[in-house]
């Protein structure tokens, strides 16, 4: 299942992305955008999980139940 989205991307960034597709780094623009979003979500998931661990330690040491 896929979702059709409409978005505004800065010209220079779009040009760089198009160049990458034309050079064959990735199949098409849809795949590039999906990959970019996936990487963003994954990296922030990791940051979040690490922040939750920090919160756990703070709660464990000094928090209240």
């Amino acid at each position, binding site marked *: 299942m896929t979702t059709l989205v409409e978005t505004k991307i800065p010209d220079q960034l779009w040009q760089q992305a198009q160049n990458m597709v034309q050079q064959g780094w990735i199949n098409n623009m849809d795949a590039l955008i999906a990959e970019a979003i996936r990487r963003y979500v994954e990296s922030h998931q990791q940051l*979040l999980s690490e922040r939750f661990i920090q919160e*756990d*330690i703070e*709660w*464990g*040491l000094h928090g209240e139940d």
Partner: protein
Amino acid sequence: MEKTKAIVIADAGPIIHLDELNSLSLLTGFDKIIIPETVWHEVQHHRPQALHHAADLAFVRLSALDFSPQVDALTPIYTLHAGEQEALHLCVEFKNSLLITDDTAARLAAKSLGVAAHGTLGILVRTIREQTRSKSEVLELLRAIPTQTTLHIRASLLAEVICKVEKNT
């Protein structure tokens, strides 16, 4: 020491990870430990031995009776699994409960619902504050995480955690 009044509703992760550390008994410091039916099945599938002492530890196996529309709405947003969903339904049902989970998405959903949530590391470290384990015992458990458990934590972050606990007076 007097038990706290917090009702704990457990996801599978912390039950499995605490058992891997032979430390499930740390949960007995809470007033009530509820294992949602779906979570019970998950633990039974992945680490059945964790449930061998369920009766001694006074685990309460429970199915959610009230289904919260908020949890249903959050399920596709956070891609919540069945056990996490049922745990969150129970958290909404039991006010002021504490969700224990090591899943980031479940914790995000809990935050959206205003439900307190903590993970295995929080439960371990909390025992120092509750004076049910010494700091050195907890440090030993923290150091055993990479080799003894399936809980994934970046080595340098675990080192930071250990350092923080060591410095705590």
